């Protein structure tokens, strides 16, 4: 198997191109004329002036055959131009850039909560010996994953904002308003981390070297901390891409629930008004994030895991 960094980069670019083509095929090639939708939304009657339609088509690069549109869009994408929003008439890239900081802050806060929580639950589920507590810790991640994110957000809002008045319900002022959305976003991610790490801990603990260490009399905590966790943490790295994607998708729901501005809210509004350029922009942003993270983790793997370095394959 070829694993040279250059080959890996080419693969990443191929996936990005495919993501662009797929989103283009979904949004532009399916029936449903964006210009007709635009005219219908702006209150124009069905029989619009042909000259006006032609002008709109030209402005949004929707003229010419589908292949010409595709080629043009791909060419513009190579120059980091994601097209023009059908609703606001402004560049999509600028809209995304304006919305990104708020979402990044939210996602970062969520990660700060999710990573320690997920790792902590996985470790505790492994070490705790009391039966009911152990069962609870084992089952909690699966339970949390199956709760609808928007409902969890609403419950938190109801409890901590409306009943207890501890935290503000809406708005974006300071850290206090970030706590509930970040917690909502963090819970499913923490559950995912706990599930993956738990499985990985269990499989590493079965390995002969752990048995050997245990038979030599290494204590349970020292064994876990010094020997098992190192080996078990590696699968978490390959989870990073999926985790970031989940954060972005979760932001759509969370930002809607808490009425926060950001990429997720932008995406929700864009779908609601069928603004295909913005929707494609968000989809491409998510795909780029995933591809870049996976590229990075793949290149990092051999550095972190000596077994993957060249020449030492088992």
């Amino acid at each position, binding site marked *: 198997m070829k694993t040279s960094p250059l080959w890996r980069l080419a693969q990443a670019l191929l*996936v990005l191109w495919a993501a662009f083509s797929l989103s283009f095929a979904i949004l532009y090639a399916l029936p449903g004329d964006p210009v007709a939708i635009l005219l219908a939304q702006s209150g124009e009657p069905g029989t619009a002036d042909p000259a006006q339609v032609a002008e709109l088509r030209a402005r949004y690069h929707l003229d010419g055959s589908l292949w010409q549109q595709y080629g043009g869009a791909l060419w513009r994408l190579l120059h980091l131009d994601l097209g023009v929003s059908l609703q606001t008439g402004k560049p999509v890239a600028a809209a995304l850039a304006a919305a990104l900081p708020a979402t990044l802050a939210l996602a970062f806060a969520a990660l700060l909560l999710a990573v320690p929580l997920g790792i902590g639950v996985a470790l505790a589920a492994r070490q705790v010996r009391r039966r009911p507590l152990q069962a609870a810790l084992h089952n909690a991640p699966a339970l949390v994953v199956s*709760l609808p994110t928007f409902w969890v957000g609403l419950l938190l809002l109801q409890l901590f904002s*409306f009943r207890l008045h501890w935290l503000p319900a809406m708005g974006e002022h300071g850290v206090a308003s970030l706590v509930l959305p970040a917690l909502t976003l963090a819970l499913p991610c923490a559950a995912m981390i706990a599930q993956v790490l738990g499985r990985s801990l269990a499989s590493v603990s079965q390995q002969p070297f752990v048995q050997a260490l245990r038979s030599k009399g290494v204590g349970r905590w020292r064994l876990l901390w010094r020997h098992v966790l190192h080996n078990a943490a590696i699968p978490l790295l390959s989870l990073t*891409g999926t985790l970031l994607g989940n954060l972005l998708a979760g932001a759509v729901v969370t930002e*809607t629930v808490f009425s926060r501005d950001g990429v997720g809210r932008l995406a929700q509004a864009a779908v609601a008004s069928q603004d295909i350029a913005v929707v494609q922009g968000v989809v491409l942003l998510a795909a780029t994030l995933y591809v870049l993270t996976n590229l990075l983790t793949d290149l990092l793997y051999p550095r972190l895991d000596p077994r993957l370095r060249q020449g030492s394959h088992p």
Partner: protein
Amino acid sequence: MILQPTFAPSRALRYWPGFPLALSLLLFLLLLGWAFFPTLFSSADPLLADPTQTLRAPSAQHWFGTDHLGRDLYARCVHGAALSLQATAIAVLIALLVGTLLGGVAGWFGGVADRVLAVLVEVLMAIPALLLAMAIVTALGFGTLEIAVAVGLSSVAVFARLARGEVLRWRSRTFVEAARVVGVGPWSNLCRHVLPHAAGPLLALAALEFASAVLAVSALSFLGFGAPPPQPEWGLLIAEGRNYMVAAWWYTTLPGLVVAAVVLATQQLGRGLQRLQGEQP
């Protein structure tokens, strides 16, 4: 020497479904009852507004309370089951069929088809399912059927991967090669001899995907891309309750609890089916 874990469930215990599984089955049957015979479970009209009964707390008369128009929330949940379940079933069916087709063709024919599928699966993994479903909804328009199709198409990847693996596992078996030698064409060989063996794991996965499809459908419906307002779709019910959270805690909490219970129950059942699959040789 590899030490075996000392705890191994006895043979008799392994086939006992256990309390969670039994409860899940009961819940699922109740859900089917809600979906197919809603009038049996609730006599109230889910669309009938009663201005004298707005935002009443849960009571013996209104189990889940009433909404801002005085409609009975329990009745709306019961009648919404059909809509939400229908959308979920369509979504899982689409994902199962399209995924099996893609994965089967890629695994069976290999070569270019396999490469194309590998890239497609990678792309589907790269775009979060919810965002992909939102993109499809943008193109298709809004409605229960539309979100069902969107959720189905956005979860094709897992089925395609499993189908490809299963086909690869069975294609080199003697009976498949014998069929080929006898002169069975590639397509009928794939459909008649290989895919039936892949059916078990695929159906178990479908049962498990049912749970995440319920979640995805309700999330899209919550975001406002599902059926238009008078309909009692679960996600929409919860979204409507958002404006009355201060006055009526039951409005968002109880329908959400129904969704969570359904997801948990179907997930348990899916796991149970998968465990059953794993025990078969």
